[in-house]
């Protein structure tokens, strides 16, 4: 799932030079709730640079992008360049579909989850799509995503009070795995195994 942050300074620096048509994507507004903030930011920009804006959705779908580019063709021609507030996919898709210059107004962040708009299970679990699932060895807690270092063979020495050295609010993934393995009586199964990640998958 994607969350967005507006690149305020970069946008302000960039708009002085050209005239823009702005696309604001609200496709994932139910994930990150930033559409209204983007709208008020866009409305605050100088009108001599931001000639028009439209709120659309699913700029990650090339068919819809073509439809939008056709629908707003005249307004885009008048402006000359396009500024897009969406995740990187939306910006790239528009950029490859039109011969005008396309710019992004946002940084894209990742938050756990792939489908829908609700972060699954309170964001407690995530999957790194590693291609070689370790869950059968780690009592169904993913070591790659629950450990800050993505360690595969147990905790590092940085755990204090069950929390990760990277952030005192973050649980140590391996301590959780260990407790679970103990609970299910499976500690012995991985003692002799040495796991090494295959990044080629």
């Amino acid at each position, binding site marked *: 799932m994607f969350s967005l942050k507006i690149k305020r300074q970069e946008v302000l620096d960039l708009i002085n030079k050209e005239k823009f048509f702005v696309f604001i994507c609200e496709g994932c507004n139910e994930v990150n709730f930033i559409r209204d903030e983007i709208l008020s930011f866009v409305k605050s920009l100088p009108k001599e640079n931001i000639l028009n804006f439209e709120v659309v959705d699913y700029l990650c779908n090339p068919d819809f992008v073509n439809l939008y580019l056709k629908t707003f063709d005249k307004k885009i021609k008048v402006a000359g360049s396009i500024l897009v507030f969406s995740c990187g996919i939306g910006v790239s898709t528009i950029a490859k579909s039109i011969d005008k210059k396309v710019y992004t107004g946002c940084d894209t962040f990742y938050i756990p989850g792939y489908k829908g708009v609700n972060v699954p299970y309170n964001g407690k679990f995530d999957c790194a799509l590693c291609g070689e699932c370790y869950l059968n060895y780690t009592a169904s807690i993913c070591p790659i995503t629950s450990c800050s270092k993505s360690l595969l063979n147990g905790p590092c020495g940085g755990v*204090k009070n069950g929390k990760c050295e990277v952030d005192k609010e973050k649980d140590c993934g*391996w301590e959780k795995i260990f407790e679970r393995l103990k609970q299910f009586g499976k500690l012995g199964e991985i003692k002799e195994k040495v796991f090494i990640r295959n990044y080629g998958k």
Partner: protein
Amino acid sequence: MKLKDLFYKKFVITSEIGPPKGWQVQHLIEEVKKYLKDKVDAINVTDNQSSVMRFGSLGMCILLKQNGFEPIYQVTCRDRNRIALQSDILTAAAFGIENLLLLTGDHTVLGDHKDAKPVFDLDSVSLIYTVKRLMEGYDLAGNKLEGEPPSFCIGAVVSPEAEPLELHLFKMEKKILAGAEFFQTQLVFNPEKFIKFIDIVRKNFGKIPILAGITILKSVAMAKYMNENVAGVNVPEHLIEELKRDDKKTKSGQTGIEISAKIIKEIKNYCEGIHIMPLGWYHKIGDLLSLAGL
């Protein structure tokens, strides 16, 4: 000279140095010569300790060797992938470095290059396994090495006072099964806890040499800071009280030395040696060792 050849024959004493953030390291060599010559059996060189970029541990180990000391090459998994790790370890062999200390390493966010990419391609267990393979004449991808395989004494680390202890013993066992031959511990401040730890280790893992980590407490602030922020470290209240009692004495380092000497005396019959982390106070090591009767 491999440390494993010294264990059980004598009480082994090692210390460590953290190289500077610069390339002119001669003064550090001079300090080591002045304060550590003939006092320690080997010197560990930390690898970008606390994720702060410093002069490389491999280079420092080579300089130590050239100056007549026995180095322990500390390698972390934070900064290099498996290719570079194996490469550097082979390089160490060429310079006569025989002792390794293999750890996972602190995360980059704790250091001074927060933006750096944390690598962690391998971790301590898989790195120990990798070195074992190199010693058998093969790299991690299964290719045969040219010439004779290198030979090392492999060390690892453990935190005997961390909780829950079982968690850390679990990892310790994996390191032993992967090929660790001795352990250097995190700082010990509670002899009873340490002795209990040793007891469990002996019962479950048999004979494996342990070097207890010792430092000299410099101040109450240092003790409190470590309790708050350093994993695996627990300075008990009564020691903090002792530091508070005489401000001048603590500042001079004498209180710290007395505390550490006492700890050493209480635990020396239970472990195979100590590892002194001076944190800059190389000049006090001599006093500590004499007071501890070593």
